């Protein structure tokens, strides 16, 4: 018998954790499809393999902690973590890279702090950064897009991933790599010299970003998150890129459009920094949070040692989120206001 007294209004929301997580998973589909279309089945294999490892790991560790593992797995949060991480991993990454990344994300990023809702950092980005600083060679081996090289089939993919045959022949520098490594060339010369680069971000990359943008807009429509953080991040990145762009000299960092539609920009804006647990809480706080991430992404991309910067920028701002919350706490209605 329930002793709980429930009064009207009986509005029911669909804001269950599993429903939100399911929406996020659905929204990644267009991006995954485009990635698969341009770079072959590598990303798909990453996601499926990583998902299996993640669910097994979550199940085991939650059982070890004396909680109900079925509940923890059923909220789909671990699948979201592993899917986001595996999208960020290079296609055809060796299996051990995926295992280490997923285990780090689930154990170190999430369960160490007490599971879903307690993690101060975005678990997927924790896994990504540990991999990036541990195995820089494997992490920067991104596949060539379709049209410039033969995209491996499914059997080849399995051979690459699980038998660790080398895939040097089909790896290529990403547009951001090219920009990072060629500081002596004018952007225009770089453009004519490298077929994978376009003014819009690069073959495959522009389309991928567009697909993630589509998924993100759908999530906005579903009210999974508010517009504040993504828009602030994109705007800040665009403004920084505009200020740093001088028409394409060797020192400039690419146009605003280039920055918005290459690398992990859209993926980060709509899927990474919108993590409700590790981001700032209030709307104003999310504006600050997103904008600072945008600025950091631009700074690290153009001045840092790494070609892309999303993971580092997000982790640094995760550190700052409580601080931002402290200064952007909304006033309780009816209190404060004008000095009287």
């Amino acid at each position, binding site marked *: 018998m329930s002793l709980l007294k429930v009064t009207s209004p009986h509005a029911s929301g669909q804001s269950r954790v599993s429903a939100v997580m399911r929406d996020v998973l659905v929204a990644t589909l267009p991006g995954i499809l485009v990635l698969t279309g341009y770079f072959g089945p590598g990303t798909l294999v990453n996601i499926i393999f990583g998902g299996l490892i993640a669910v097994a790991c979550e199940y085991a560790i939650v059982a070890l902690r004396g909680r109900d593992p079925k509940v923890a797995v059923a909220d789909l949060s671990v699948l979201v973590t592993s899917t986001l991480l595996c999208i960020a991993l290079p296609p055809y990454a060796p299996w051990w890279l995926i295992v*280490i990344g997923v285990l780090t994300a689930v154990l*170190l990023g999430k369960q160490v702090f007490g599971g879903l809702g307690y993690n101060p950092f975005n678990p997927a980005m924790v896994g990504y950064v*540990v991999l990036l*600083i*541990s*195995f*820089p*060679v*494997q992490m920067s081996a991104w596949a060539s897009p379709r049209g410039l090289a033969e995209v491996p089939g499914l059997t080849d993919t399995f051979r690459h991933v699980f038998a660790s045959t080398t895939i040097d022949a089909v790896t290529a520098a990403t547009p951001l790599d090219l920009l990072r490594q060629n500081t002596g060339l004018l952007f225009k010369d770089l453009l004519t010299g490298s077929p994978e680069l376009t003014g819009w971000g690069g073959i495959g990359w522009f389309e991928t970003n567009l697909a993630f943008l589509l998924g993100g807009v759908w999530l906005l429509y579903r009210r999974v998150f508010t517009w504040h953080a993504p828009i602030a991040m994109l705007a800040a990145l665009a403004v920084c890129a505009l200020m740093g762009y001088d028409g394409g000299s060797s020192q400039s960092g690419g146009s605003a459009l280039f920055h918005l539609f290459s690398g992990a920009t859209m993926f980060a804006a709509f899927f990474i920094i919108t993590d409700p647990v590790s981001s700032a809480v209030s709307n104003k706080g999310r504006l600050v949070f997103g904008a600072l991430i945008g600025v950091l992404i631009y700074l690290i991309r153009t001045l840092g040692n790494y070609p892309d910067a999303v993971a580092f920028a997000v982790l640094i701002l995760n550190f700052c989120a409580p601080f931002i919350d402290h200064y952007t706490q909304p006033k309780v209605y009816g209190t404060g206001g004008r000095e009287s």
Partner: protein
Amino acid sequence: MSSTSYRQLTLNGLWKNNPALVQLLGLCPLLAVTASTVNALGLAAATLFVLVVSNTSVSLIRSLVSDTIRLPVFVMIIAAAVTVTELLMQAYSYELYQILGIFLPLITTNCIILGRADAFARKNALPAALYDGFIMGVGFGAVLVLLGAIRELLGTGALFADMQLLFGAGAESWRWQVFNVDYPFLVAILPPGAFLVTGCLIALKNQVDTSLERRAKAQAEAPVAGSKRVRVTGTVS
């Protein structure tokens, strides 16, 4: 000093009040030089030596130094001990001296040493102070070496590499390749790895403590078969 208090000192230094895992003192060298076993061992030995010398000297002069100027005096003693250690390492293991670099002179500012001098040695007689310095040094060194070994193993797949830096040419063959790694797990050797492994060690220690406590509690509360319950008739089955 009675024998029980020596047992107490041992327990404190090695486990209950371990400088590295419980007091969290001297974290700077703990995190900075434990990328390999040999580095950790070198710094552990140096710290142990300095701790023993400083505790001994502080205990000897404890009645001569007034409270107001005690800290500068202690630091002078520690700095002297550190200088001796530095010169010794320059003479006998120069390469290791170069690897440890700034962290050797920095032993002077290691909180454990000043902490033990101020908290223990200045209030206790020579034998106890000496023993306390020794056992605290061993406790700190044990964690240092364990951390170094774990990080070296994770990062390179080997143990006891480059031991010749400390033990002479004969120790070159001590290197033990536990498993082969094609690509080193760099994060274990880089500074973040030190934080991660230290955190795991602290968690492990706390876990052991809690389970020991729980077991002791269960044992204390366990009813003895055949004993009578208080104010209840009948016997416990």
